């Protein structure tokens, strides 16, 4: 049986472009679709006091419960790869302060066809937020 390639990593600080792009396409000809999702810190977030209004951020502080966060991230990646018959999945998540415009999350998915890759991407991100013990705290501009 084919075993998908799975990696996951929590790193301190923002994810740089070189890390976000560091995905080699294996040359065995089975991969037809490669998806990359980057989560980026936006400037405006709903105000906790008045959720209908937006408030300016400087950054988000990501807090992780270690090593459970790493373990759950890897378990989720492994389960997603199996459920969607992926060729490979690579996930990176930041810990600590990530400024507006910086990348805090990257998901790479390789699959034979795009439908599997798209479905895996959507389900991974939903499950990440429901299951992996990582919290974000806003650092407000004012």
């Amino acid at each position, binding site marked *: 049986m084919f075993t998908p390639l799975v990696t996951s990593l929590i790193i301190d600080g923002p994810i740089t472009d070189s890390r976000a792009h560091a995905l080699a396409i294996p040359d065995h000809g089975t991969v037809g679709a490669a998806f990359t999702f980057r989560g980026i810190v936006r400037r405006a977030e709903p105000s906790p006091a008045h959720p209908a209004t937006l408030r300016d951020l400087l950054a988000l502080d990501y807090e992780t*419960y270690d090593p459970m966060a790493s*373990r759950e991230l890897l378990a989720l990646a492994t389960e997603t790869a199996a459920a969607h018959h992926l060729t490979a999945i690579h996930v990176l998540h930041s810990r600590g302060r990530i400024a507006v415009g910086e990348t805090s999350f990257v998901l790479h998915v390789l699959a034979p066809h795009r439908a599997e890759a798209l479905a895996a991407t959507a389900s991974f991100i939903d499950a990440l937020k429901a*299951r992996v*013990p990582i919290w974000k*705290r806003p650092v407000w501009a004012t």
Partner: protein
Amino acid sequence: MKLEVLIFGAAALAARSGRLSVDVPHPATAADVLAALEAQHPSLAFALKPPATPRLAVNHAYVPPTQPVTPADELALITLLGGG
């Protein structure tokens, strides 16, 4: 018996601490710990009542409500609010 529970995120901000004590019967289960957090720390209600979906992690793994817990275990309240 007294148990320590790690808390995070908005729950930790509300409690002004990353760690809380609860009194639970002996023996106790994960469900007892969640019930004790809600009864003994009213500031955490937002993180424990619906629509929040609190779970207890024991030694870095999610456990079912019936899981026994002891003072030797590392307990953590995991309340993820989704979104983003």
